[in-house]
C-alpha cells in the first residue's frame, strides 16, 4: 500500500514542496517535486531527490542514552529536568543554555524559546542560524524596523537584472537557481551579475562576474549608491516620503572612496566591470539583489546587508514586482526560527525586548528575560569558561560548524552537563553528550517551516517514528513540565503550539509588527493538516497572505520610514600576514548538506565530491609547493585540516574548502577548526568566509583507497576519508609509515577479515610502492584496495560499479586490479549528474559521437542535467575539453 503525502524538503531555505510516495510497510519512499508548491513547481535538486535514501535506520538514535547507557525516556527526561533545575538553583538561570537549529520545526522552536526566555528566564537560547542569517536579520531590522524579506520567488521571473552577491545559488539554492536559469532562457534580456571572489557554478549563467576582493562588498555598494546619486538615478520621491538618513548614507560613501577607479582598485576589479555593473543597475528597471553567506558571514555583514538595501531604497526598488533586496536563507526553517525568537537577541513573534511585557503577559510568564542572551560564539565561550554549566543542543553539530571548532569541542568536553537531542546517533557533537535524546527525523515529524520568501509550509510525518524517537516539541515540553511548568507547556500536538504561536503574532499587534499570522489563531486540526503553503502575514488585512512588502513605503520603524544606514566599509578583522599569507574561504557543495549527518547516508550524493578538498590558484600552489590532487595541510592560528588540492583559476591569495566534513567521515576534514572566531559586532555572525591561513604539502609515504562492501573499522591510518556508496563504502587513505607487509596488513585490518572462503587477488610492485588487492566472496567483489607511493591512483568509478553485480565475469575479475574495465568495456568516469548517475566519460562520449553542442542536447541524449539541473555548468564545461 502506498500513499502520497505532500511535505517540504528539509534542506536549504528554498523550501521546496515534495510529493512523497510512501510505502509504510516496506519503509520505502519515492520522492518527487510537488508541482503545486510555489517554491519549486515540481523541481527538486539532487539532495532533495535523494531523500528517500536517507530514511534508513543506520546510525539513527533510537533510544535515550544517559552517560553512554540506553535508558527509558522517563529516566532521561527526569535527569535533564532535574539537572537543569539544580544548576539554575545553584548558579542562576544564565548558567544554562539551549542551542537550537534551523532544522527544527517552528513548533519545536517556539516551545524551546518559550521555555528558555519565558520560564527559565534567560536569554541563552541561540541557534545555528546565527552562523547563517543573523547579519541579514540585523540589516533588515536596522533598515525596515523589522526582520522582513520584502520580496518573493515570483520576482525571479519578472526581474530584468538579477545580482547574486556572495551566493553560489547553483549549488546552495539549486531550485531557485534553476528558476533563474529558466527565466533567463525565457527572457534573454534578463541580465545576471555574480559578485563573488570565486568563479562558482553560478557564474554559468552570469553576463558579468565580479571577482571582488574578499570582504570588499561594502565598497562596491557604497560606490553604487554614489554612482546612482551622481547619475540622477535616484527615486527622489520615495527617498523623501518613505525613508530617513539618505544624506548621511550618501555622505559615508564620499568619506570612503570617490571614483570608480578607486573602488575598482580597492575591490581588485577592472574599472570596466565595475562601470558595467553600475550602468546596468542604473539603467535597469526591475532589479533583484540576491545575497547569502558571502555577505552575511562577515565581521561587517550587517553593514554589507545595509549597503545593498541602501541602493534599493534609494531607487525605490523594493518590494516591487521583480525588484528588491532578497536574502536567501540557508536553512529550511531559519525563517521560522526567527519568527519564534530562536536567536538570543530576539523575542517571539518579532517582538522587541522593549516590548517584553507583551510576551510576558501573553505567556503569563513574569520572569521572561528582559535582555538578550549569549549568541553562538559567546555562548560556547561561556561554556568553555565554565559560566554555562548545562547546555542542551538540539539538532545541530557545533563541534563541526562553529568557528574555532576545536575550542568548542574542548568546551563541551569540559562542560558539566551536555544534552543533545538529535535523530542521528553518532556525530562529533553527540560524542560529547552526557544525555542523548532521540528526536524524530524529517520523515517522522509534523509541523511547519518557513522558507526564504516567508512562505509557511507543512512538513508531514511519512512514517512511524524510529525506535522510541519523539518530536522535539514533545521532548522540550516534557522537560518544561518536569521543571514545574506543567500548565504552560500542556500541548498535545503541534497544532496546539501553532495556534498559540499564531495568536501571539497577533497579540497587541495592530499593524506594528510585520509578522502576523493571527488568522491561524483558531486553526482546526483538520485545517492544519490540510495547510497549503502561504506567505505571511496572514491576518484580516491579508487573509490569503502577502507576496511583497514596502512598495507602499510603510515600514515598521517608529517613524514608519525606512532607514538608510551610513556604512563605513571595513576590511575583515584578521588580515593575511607573512605567517598566514592566504585567505580561507568556506562554503557548501552541491550534493552535501551541513555536517553530512543525513546526506552522507545517500550513496549518490557522495559521488560528486567524495573527499575534502582545497581550491587554490595554480600560482599559489606553485609558490607553496602543493600539487594538484596531492594532499595539503591548511593551518590557521586556531587549527588545521588536511585536504586534497584542486587547482582553480580563481583569485590568487584565496583558498576555498567545503564546510561539510566531520570526524565521522574524515580524520582531518573539519574546516571549523581553522575558522577565526571573529564576529560582526551587531549581528554576532562569525566571519566564516575569511580566515588567514597557510598551506603546505602533506606528504605521506603512501596513499590509497579501499572500496568495501562492508563498513570497515579503519584504525591506525594517519589520514582517512569515509563515504557511503551504492553497495559499498569508500575509504581514501594515506599513511606516514609503511606496514611491514601490505598483504598481511590488508588481510588483518583492511578487509572483511571475518569472511571465510574468500578469494584474493594481489598485485605488487614493491619498488614503486604499489600494492593492490581484491577480496572476493561468493564470486562477488567484497573489498578492493589500491595503494601507491603518491596520489597517482586509478579512478574509482568502474570498480564502484562492480559492487552492484551479482557475479563478476572472468574478464572483469582479470581487470580488477587495473581499476579499469576490461579494455573495450565502458568506464563512465567521475559522476557528473548525481540524479541519473551519469559519468563524465559517458557524457564526453555522447558529445563526441552525436556532435552535441548544448547541455539540452546532452539532456535529451542521456537525461543528464534534466532533473535538478545543478550539474549543467559541469556538463557545459565538458564541451570545452572535447578536443
Amino acid at each position, binding site marked *: 500500500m502506498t500513499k502520497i503525502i505532500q511535505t517540504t524538503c528539509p534542506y536549504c531555505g528554498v523550501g521546496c514542496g515534495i510529493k512523497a510516495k510512501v510505502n509504510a510497510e516496506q519503509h520505502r519512499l519515492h520522492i518527487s517535486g510537488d508541482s503545486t508548491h510555489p517554491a519549486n513547481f515540481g523541481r527538486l535538486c539532487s539532495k532533495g531527490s535523494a531523500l528517500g535514501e536517507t530514511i534508513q535506520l543506520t546510525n539513527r538514535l533510537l533510544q535515550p542514552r544517559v552517560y553512554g547507557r540506553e535508558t527509558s525516556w522517563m529516566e532521561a527526561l527526569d535527569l535533564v529536568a532535574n539537572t537543569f533545575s539544580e544548576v539554575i538553583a545553584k548558579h542562576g538561570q544564565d548558567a544554562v543554555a539551549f542551542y537550537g537549529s534551523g532544522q527544527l520545526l517552528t513548533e519545536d522552536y517556539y516551545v524551546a524559546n518559550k521555555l528558555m526566555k519565558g520560564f527559565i528566564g534567560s536569554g541563552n537560547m541561540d541557534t545555528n542560524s546565527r552562523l547563517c542569517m543573523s547579519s541579514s536579520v540585523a540589516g533588515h531590522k536596522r533598515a525596515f524596523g523589522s526582520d522582513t524579506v520584502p520580496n518573493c520567488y515570483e520576482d525571479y521571473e519578472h526581474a530584468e537584472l538579477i545580482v547574486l552577491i556572495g551566493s553560489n545559488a547553483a549549488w546552495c539554492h539549486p531550485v531557485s537557481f534553476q528558476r533563474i536559469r529558466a527565466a533567463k532562457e525565457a527572457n534573454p534580456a534578463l541580465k545576471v551579475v555574480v559578485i563573488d571572489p570565486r568563479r562558482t557554478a553560478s557564474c554559468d549563467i552570469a553576463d558579468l562576474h565580479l571577482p571582488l576582493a574578499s570582504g570588499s562588498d561594502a565598497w562596491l555598494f557604497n560606490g553604487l549608491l554614489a554612482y546612482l546619486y551622481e547619475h540622477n538615478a535616484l527615486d527622489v520621491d520615495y527617498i523623501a516620503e518613505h525613508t530617513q538618513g539618505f544624506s548621511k548614507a550618501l555622505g559615508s560613501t564620499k568619506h570612503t572612496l570617490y571614483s570608480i577607479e578607486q573602488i575598482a582598485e580597492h575591490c581588485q576589479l577592472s574599472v570596466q566591470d565595475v562601470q558595467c555593473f553600475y550602468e546596468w543597475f542604473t539603467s535597469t528597471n526591475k532589479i533583484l539583489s540576491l545575497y547569502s553567506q558571502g555577505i552575511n558571514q562577515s565581521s561587517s555583514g550587517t553593514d554589507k546587508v545595509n549597503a545593498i538595501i541602501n541602493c534599493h531604497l534609494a531607487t525605490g526598488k523594493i518590494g516591487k514586482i521583480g525588484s528588491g533586496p532578497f536574502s536567501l536563507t540557508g536553512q529550511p526553517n531559519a525563517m521560522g526560527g526567527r519568527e519564534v525568537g530562536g536567536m538570543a537577541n530576539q523575542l517571539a513573534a518579532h517582538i522587541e525586548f522593549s516590548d517584553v511585557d507583551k510576551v510576558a503577559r501573553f505567556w503569563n510568564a513574569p520572569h521572561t528575560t528582559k535582555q538578550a542572551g549569549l549568541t553562538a560564539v559567546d555562548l560556547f565561550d561561556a561554556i568553555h569558561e565554565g559560566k554555562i554549566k548545562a547546555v542542551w543542543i538540539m539538532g545541530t553539530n557545533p563541534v563541526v560548524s562553529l568557528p574555532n571548532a576545536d575550542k568548542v569541542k574542548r568546551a563541551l568536553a569540559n562542560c558539566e552537563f551536555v544534552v543533545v537531542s538529535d535523530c542521528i546517533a553518532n556525530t562529533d557533537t553527540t560524542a560529547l553528550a552526557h544525555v542523548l535524546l532521540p528526536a524524530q527525523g524529517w520523515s517522522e515529524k509534523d509541523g511547519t517551516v518557513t522558507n526564504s520568501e516567508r512562505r509557511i509550509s507543512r512538513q508531514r510525518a511519512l512514517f512511524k517514528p524510529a525506535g522510541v524517537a519523539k518530536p522535539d516539541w514533545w521532548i522540550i515540553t516534557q522537560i518544561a513540565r518536569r521543571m514545574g511548568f506543567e500548565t504552560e507547556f500542556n500541548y498535545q500536538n503541534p497544532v496546539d503550539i501553532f495556534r498559540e504561536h499564531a495568536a501571539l503574532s497577533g497579540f497587541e499587534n495592530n499593524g506594528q509588527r510585520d509578522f502576523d499570522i493571527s488568522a491561524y489563531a483558531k486553526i482546526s486540526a483538520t485545517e492544519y493538516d490540510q495547510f497549503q503553503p502561504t506567505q505571511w502575514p496572514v491576518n484580516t488585512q491579508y487573509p490569503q497572505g502577502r507576496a511583497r512588502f514596502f512598495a507602499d513605503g510603510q515600514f515598521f520603524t517608529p517613524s514608519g520610514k525606512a532607514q538608510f544606514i551610513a556604512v563605513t566599509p571595513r576590511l575583515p578583522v584578521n588580515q593575511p600576514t607573512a605567517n598566514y599569507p592566504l585567505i580561507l574561504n568556506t562554503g557548501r557543495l552541491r550534493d552535501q548538506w551541513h555536517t553530512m549527518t543525513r546526506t552522507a547516508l545517500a550513496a549518490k550524493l557522495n559521488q560528486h565530491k567524495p573527499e575534502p578538498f582545497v581550491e587554490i590558484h595554480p600560482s599559489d600552489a606553485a609558490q607553496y609547493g602543493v600539487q594538484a590532487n596531492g594532499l595539503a595541510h591548511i593551518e590557521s592560528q586556531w587549527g588545521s585540516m588536511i585536504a586534497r588540492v584542486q587547482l582553480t583559476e580563481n583569485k590568487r591569495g584565496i583558498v576555498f574548502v567545503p564546510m561539510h566534513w566531520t570526524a565521522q567521515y574524515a580524520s582531518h576534514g573539519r574546516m571549523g577548526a581553522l575558522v577565526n572566531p571573529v564576529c560582526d559586532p551587531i549581528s554576532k555572525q562569525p566571519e566564516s568566509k575569511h580566515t588567514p591561513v597557510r598551506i603546505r604539502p602533506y606528504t605521506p609515504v603512501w596513499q590509497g583507497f579501499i572500496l568495501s562492501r562492508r563498513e570497515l573499522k579503519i584504525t591506525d591510518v594517519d589520514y582517512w576519508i569515509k563515504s557511503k556508496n551504492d553497495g559499498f563504502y569508500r575509504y581514501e587513505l594515506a599513511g606516514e609509515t609503511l606496514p611491514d607487509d601490505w598483504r598481511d596488513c590488508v588481510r588483518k585490518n583492511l578487509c572483511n577479515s571475518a569472511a571465510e572462503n574468500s*578469494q*584474493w*587477488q*594481489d*598485485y*605488487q*610492485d*614493491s*619498488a*614503486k610502492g*604499489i600494492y593492490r588487492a581484491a577480496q*572476493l566472496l561468493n564470486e562477488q567483489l567484497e573489498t578492493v584496495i589500491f595503494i601507491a607511493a603518491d596520489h597517482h591512483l586509478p579512478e574509482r568509478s568502474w570498480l564502484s560499479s562492480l559492487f552492484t553485480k551479482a557475479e563478476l565475469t*572472468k574478464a572483469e*575479475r*582479470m*581487470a580488477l*586490479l*587495473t581499476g*579499469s574495465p576490461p*579494455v573495450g568495456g565502458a568506464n563512465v568516469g567521475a559522476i557528473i549528474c548525481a540524479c541519473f548517475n551519469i559519468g563524465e566519460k559517458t557524457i564526453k562520449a555522447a558529445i563526441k559521437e552525436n556532435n552535441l553542442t548544448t547541455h539540452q542536447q546532452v539532456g535529451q541524449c542521456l537525461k543528464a542535467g534534466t532533473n535538478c539541473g545543478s550539474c549543467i555548468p559541469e556538463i557545459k564545461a565538458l564541451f570545452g575539453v572535447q578536443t
Partner: protein
Amino acid sequence: MKDQKQKLVVIGNGMAGMRTIEELLSAVPDKYDITVFGAEPYGNYNRIMLSAVLAGDKTIEDIVINNRQWYIDNHITLHAGAAKAVISIERGIQKVIAKDGTTADYDRLLIATGSKAVVPDVVGNDLDGVISFRDIFDVNKMLAYSRSHKKAVVLGGGLLGLEAANGLVLRGMGVTVIHNNAVLLNRQLDKPAGQLLQTELEKKGIKFKMAAKLSSLVGDENNHITRVQFEDGSELDCDLFIMAIGVRPNIALAQQAGLYCERGIVVDDTLQSYDPSIYAVGECIQHRGDTFGLVAPLFEQAKVCANHLSAHGVAGYITLPTATKLKVTGIHLFSIGDFQGDTRTESLIFSDPALGIYKKLVLKNNKLVGAVLYGDTADGSWYQELLEQETNIATLRDGLIFGKTYAESIA
C-alpha cells in the same frame, strides 16, 4: 654436374639436423649432395611432441615432420636404423663409418647427435623397467608398461618428467614424481608458480615426493625394478621408473674423433667446430659455455648454420633467453629469462590463486629481464618480445602485468 657438388653428411636425423637441412635446401637447393645417418628407423619426427603421443593426444604419424618420401624428393640419402648408427668419423679422410660398414665421404660434416638422458648414480639404475624418455622407442615401452602395470615413478620434476608423469596417469598408471627440489620446474618457476602447478597436477592424479633424495633402486629376481628407496628410509613400490633428470650432450662420437669438446662439442658463433669442415647443431653442442635442451635455440642454430653451409656466411648465433612451456593439456605456464631476480632487480607480481593465476615480471633498469606466467600465458610472447628487444618499459610499467592491450592503452 653432380660430381661437382659438395658432399654434406649429417649425423643425426633429429630436429636440429633436419631443420638445418630444410633451411639449407630453401637457401641453396643444389649446393650439396646430402647424406643423413639416423640411429632411429624413421624419417624425421618432432621429438618434443612425444609427450602428446604418450598422453594420447597425438599418434606417431601426427608428429612426423619429414617422412621417407621427403628424403627421396629432396635427393637426400637416408641411412636410418640402429645398424646405420655412425660409429666413427675419419676426419683425416673426411669419411664417416656406420655400424654396418656403410660409409660416406664428406666435404662438410654436420653433427647433430643430440643428447642422452642423465642416468642417476644409484644402485639399480640398470634394472629392467628403468628407462628414459627420449624417443619413440621409449614411448612405446611406456605405453606397453601402462597396459600391464600400475605403478610408475618418475625421477625429475622438470618439464620432461612432468610430461611423462601426465602421460602415464592418462594411460591409467599411478604415478609419483620424485623431485630433488621443493619447487617443481624450479629451473623455470619460482615457488608460488611451482606450488600452483603442483596443486593442479595433483588434481590430475599425480603424486609428488618433493625434495626427496633417491638412495637405490631395488629389483626382483628377474632383475626387474620393484621398489624405490630413499635416503630418509622411505620406499615406493615401482613397476616402471622413468629417468628425467636432464640431458647431457651426446658427444661420444665427436670425442672419439678428437674434436674439441667440453661438456658439448664446442662451436663458434657460426656453429663451426674446431675442425673447419665440421659443424654441429642442437643439444650436442656447447656455445659460449651454454648447452641446450629446448627447441627454440636449436631452430635458431639451424638457421645460422645453414647460412654458413650455404656460404652466405653473414649470420652469427646469439643465445637468446628461451621461453618455456609445459605440454600438459590445460596447464599454461611460461617462463623466460631471469625470473628469480636479485638485489638489483625489481619485481611485479600478480596472483589469483583461486583462478590458478600467477605472474611475475622481473625488471632491471626499466627493462624486462625475466618472467614467469602461470595460468594465464596470453601475453608470454609480448613479454618475450619486450625482453629480447630490451624495450624500455617505464611508461608501460603500471600496466605491464595486465597484458599488452591494457598496458598500451594506458601508456
